[in-house]
């Protein structure tokens, strides 16, 4: 079966009076699904690093998936990844802005200063695991936590460049496309991010 370069081609076939072979449609649905399945966990962790909240991270990842499939699935599949991360980063920024506004409003309102959206803590989260934690895993978790804190302290563009280049493994051109900036800017942001992180984490880390 001849492969099409984009999902759009499959849709053209799908929409034509003569129905497309079911296999072609399935193939392209699978292609999109495969892309999302491959990317979703890393995207979630990146969003979680930026937002410090699993539910918020899930929300922005879901929004990014919906926007990509609705508006950009017709683009060549090679463009999906930078597009997805651009949508995701926009979602993260929007949420951070909303939080800032909400925080300002909450400081002016009387009463408890608790975030109304925060849910009661799950008691199960405080229950210790039955199996003793492996020291090495524990150290890794601590190191990751330190890295996350340092990443949150970075300017947004530096954090974004570092996560896309280092965590997601994008090249400079792809990162520039995702960040909607020049390749030179990506290199600058990335280099500054690495040096800032190393300064914060120290030589021992």
């Amino acid at each position, binding site marked *: 079966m001849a492969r099409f370069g984009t999902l759009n081609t499959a849709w053209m076939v799908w929409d034509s009076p003569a129905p497309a072979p079911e296999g072609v449609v399935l193939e392209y649905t699978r292609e999109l699904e495969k892309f999302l399945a491959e990317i*979703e*966990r890393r995207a979630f962790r990146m969003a979680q690093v930026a937002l410090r909240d699993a539910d918020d991270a899930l929300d922005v990842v879901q929004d990014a*998936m919906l926007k990509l499939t*609705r508006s950009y699935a017709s683009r060549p599949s090679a463009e999906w990844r930078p597009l997805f991360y651009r949508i995701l980063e926009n979602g993260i920024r929007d949420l951070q802005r909303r939080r800032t506004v909400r925080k300002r409003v909450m400081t002016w309102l009387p009463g408890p200063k608790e975030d109304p959206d925060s849910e009661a803590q799950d008691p199960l989260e405080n229950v210790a695991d039955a199996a003793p934690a492996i020291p090495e895993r524990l150290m890794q*978790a601590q190191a*990751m936590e330190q890295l996350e804190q340092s990443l949150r302290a970075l300017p947004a563009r530096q954090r974004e460049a570092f996560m896309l280049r*280092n965590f997601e493994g994008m090249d400079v051109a792809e990162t520039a496309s995702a960040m909607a900036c020049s390749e030179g800017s990506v290199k600058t942001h990335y280099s500054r991010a*690495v040096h800032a992180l190393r300064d914060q984490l120290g030589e021992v880390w």
Partner: protein
Amino acid sequence: MSEQDDNAFELRSRALFHDSVEGLDMRIRSRLTQARSAALEAAATRRPWALGWKLWTPAAGVTAAAILGVVLWMGSPLHHQAGTVADAQSSFEDLDLLASSDEGSGDALDMLQDDIDFYDFADKSANPGPAA
């Protein structure tokens, strides 16, 4: 800080990140799978309508332009009157005459001057004012 140290830092941070991704719990994995399914389902239900709209828009535009063109042509004097090209030409000649009279004899300006004198006379007749 050497480049080698930078590379070691990059490798370590990447490895830690990927370990944390592998360590995601089942609740998160399940919710991500649900989100993916919902996104694909939304795209699948939207596709035929969206593409149909995209395909029909240019066709509708061309049709509307064609209809507008026909309507304008049917309503124009060029369509209603035979020999209209000659009429249109004579109109241009009239304009030419007017233009040439402006430049040459000054008849048009005289005519304008006559009108002003007439309006002045009519105004004075209507409002005679106090006798001197």
